[in-house]
């Protein structure tokens, strides 16, 4: 019953990160990367950020260059507390 709209979580995260980057592309240059990073730090749960870092480690990950640039400023999640 699956249809083409059902992406994997990783695909969704790439899509979401790129959407955020698209918005910040239109903002003043010097704020763009910091804007992306801050947004992701603010709203993404550690699990999501961890998955993003896993994706960042891959070649041809489909991420917008602005996300790559912002990556340095995205907080690495600590060990998830149990």
């Amino acid at each position, binding site marked *: 019953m699956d*249809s083409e*709209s059902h992406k994997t*979580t990783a695909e*969704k995260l790439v899509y979401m990160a790129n959407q955020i980057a698209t*918005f910040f*592309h239109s903002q003043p240059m010097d704020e763009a990367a910091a804007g992306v990073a801050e947004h992701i730090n603010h709203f993404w*749960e550690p*699990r*999501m950020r961890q998955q993003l870092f896993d994706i960042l480690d891959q070649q041809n990950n489909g991420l917008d260059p602005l996300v790559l640039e912002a990556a340095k400023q995205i907080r690495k999640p600590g060990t998830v507390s149990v």
Partner: protein
Amino acid sequence: MSLVNEIDYGTPASLSGKMVTLTIDGNEVTVPEGTSLMRAAMEAGIQVPKLCATDMVDAFGSCRLCLIEIEGRNGTPASCTTPAMEGLVVHTQTKRLKDIRKGVMELYISDHPLDCLTCAANGDCELQDMAGAVGLRDVRYGYEGDNHVFAKSDGHANDRWMPKDESNPYFTYDPAKCIVCSRCVRACEEVQGTFALTIEGRGFSSRVSSGMHENFLDSECVSCGACVQACPTATLTEKSVIQIGQPEHSKITTCAYCGVGCSFKAEMRGEELVRMVPYKDGKANRGHSCVKGRFAYGYSTHKDRILNPMIREKITDPWREVSWDEAYKYVANEFRRIQYQYGRNSIGGITSSRCTNEETFLVQKLVRAGFGNNNVDTCARVCHSPTGYGLKTTFGTSAGTQDFDSVEHSDVVMVIGANPTDGHPVFASRLKKRLRKGAKLIVVDPRRIDLVRSPHISAAQHLQLRPGTNVAVVTSLAHVIVTEGLFDEKFIRERCDWDEFQDWAAFVSSPEHSPEAIEGLTGVNPQTLREAARLFATGGNGAIYYGLGVTEHSQGSTTVMAIANLAMATGNIGRKGVGVNPLRGQNNVQGSCDMGSFPHELPGYRHVSDESTRDIFDRLWGVKIQDEPGLRIPNMLDAAVDGTFKGIYIQGEDILQSDPDTKHVAAGLQAMECVVVHDLFLNETANYAHVFLPGSTFLEKDGTFTNAERRINRVRKVMSPLNGYADWEVTQNLAKAMGLNWNYTHPSQIMDEIALTTPSFAGVSYDLLEKEGSVQWPCNEKAPLGTPIMHINGFARGKGKFIRTEYVATDERTGPRFPLLLTTGRILSQYNVGAQTRRTDNVMWHEEDRLEIHAHDAENRGIRDGDWVKISSRSGETTLRALITDRVSPGVVYTTFHHPTTQANVITTDFSDWATNCPEYKVTAVQVGASNGPSDWQVQYDEQARQSRRIKILDAAE
């Protein structure tokens, strides 16, 4: 307990600031100029007899009962139409007046049935009261002559007699009892603005008529009830009063349907609700209501309500009724087991925009303090989360800027992506009143909503844009305003960051944002757009109202910021009559957001990473709150599918029906090990639940709701919960079962905790609400009685922030397979997913969801009006019946989403707002074709739903 009594002053209050002093029956009284003598007398405590006047409508002066005498003037003028003037000396009771009044009453009574003892209005009839007031003792005229009272006279049919009209499910019209005072007609025109009623005929033969000789149900009538309220006799009467009798006590409470948050008197007989009557002192509604709040409360005692807790190990099992204790224990054990097995962050909760602030606060507290994580979200995610983000970024506060009264001072009103006459009816009535007095209207919407053309109202401009192009249109409005030099430089220099403004101005000025350049994209005529921009910038006080048609897009947050830019650039912020006003969907969307329902924010919109805020709660609750944001609803579902999220407590929401991409929601829920649904009914989400906890209605609990104008209104308990416990008690008991030491005995204590921890609520308490009726946050030391209008002397964030808003086309595009754009909305008589309204007589107005399609598109596909059609997107397909209309442009189709069988969200996709993940409900590429019945998915779904709703009947032994 007694009835809350409201004084009828006879005519509306005058807003004049100039006062005049006069003498009435020897009492000196000072009133604003323009006040009627009738009202002035009432202010002095003197009730002049009256029939055709009531203070909800303008005086008409037809009954001649309210005559008075003025010294030095001839004649006996009507007090309801004569204005008070300086120095007048007025007498309300003289021999001459008494005689005239008796004569008038005699005539009325001679054409009125004398069945007072068995009349539904007995005890609440102004005709009866006036007969008593004027001392009527006998009636000289008999019924032999012409009358409207008897079906037959002298054995012949009486042409003048008309049968009762009982077509409306909630009230009856009995022409035999009508005194033709026209109060109902004026109420329908002035208060509701629908113009459904007229007085037909002249003189003795005149009668009230709904529409063109139609009955009420088939007429234009929207069943708001204003005429029923205005009627002084039993002519228009609530059916519930006819069935039950007159109420004996009442309490003020707040409607639980939409974000207008109307105040009502719940009029009771014991614990039985007789009727809901809008409350004149209610500051959101000023005595008006719509069909939902006024009449659609029958769901609260509907047989489908589940009253006992139930559990089942697997969702394929039938439900098993259990005791409350067993249910709490089961949930607590399951949640602890899951956390032990899959980690602390593997469970979460969803708060409800239909529950009270206090209940919402407790659910997020349970998640943060009990579950030990921040996995809490609310259904505002799917409606207004972009409002929060956009307005916080630009202005510094996640809320609308005005109170509803503000619209009375607006000169130009821009309505973007909202359909107030259906979604926010009472606000729409207030808006229409202002428009009839001359304010100008600009509508930005893909569909020709009712407001564009309705009786005595016509929008100056309707920008009928293609769905998904809001940002392009609003940015282009700014382009015109900046390039034509229409911006308010003084305001911007004072209140905003000038450098940011210049950056933004350069951005919007670029030619690619001109109306001419975007026409191909948006379908909006450039000239129309230019005129709209000029009108908004130069027409006086400009106010913007917007709804889900703005937020539910990939660029929802960007549009909200574009709207904020527009308001700042034109200086339309910080006083009466202007502002940026989100029209909230559900009654407590604002409140649930305020109460910390978002995974990244503690109550009062403070980010979880802020240590000093966490400290406040850590200390009070004796816990350590996580400093990382939690999962949002769509992320929870993704995590569930990935296997890292396993349990959820959902209070008062039906995410399976209200969230996009139904199949994905179902897959997420199915992957969880413990889904707890706390609701009135076995809703669609409950098909996937393991535990069901029965909920209570707003009539059964104390609390507060916060409406779209940030107004905190009391909800008051008028009957005991059928299920035994208010929702806050259930959450508390669940918390206790999980080992938390909570001991609230009344919701007022929860509000005290909110006030203690949240600066914008610091001054709020039940005592204050008792005194003031309601307050608008921020309410604290600086604003002890609340804040009707925000950002008066500067923005909450300091300087207003202009932000570049680049249009980005949504990835949801039409193509050969899916050539049409579907957009969704709501209608008046139904509410949200319809769980409540479908269980009332409101279904008489909306039995099913229909697909609106332009004749051109229908013809191409061989579709006729009323045909079953299949609508499909790349997500899924469903079927419903077509409605051919020119309200939508060719290429666009539209439907509502009130009925679960339609499953409109099977079609919507997983695209969402870039900033907040608010789903893109308003744009889906679809194909429409003929069909001969329900889709496979609908059939399968129905079967699954039927199966999962089975309840095992308990043995007597158990």
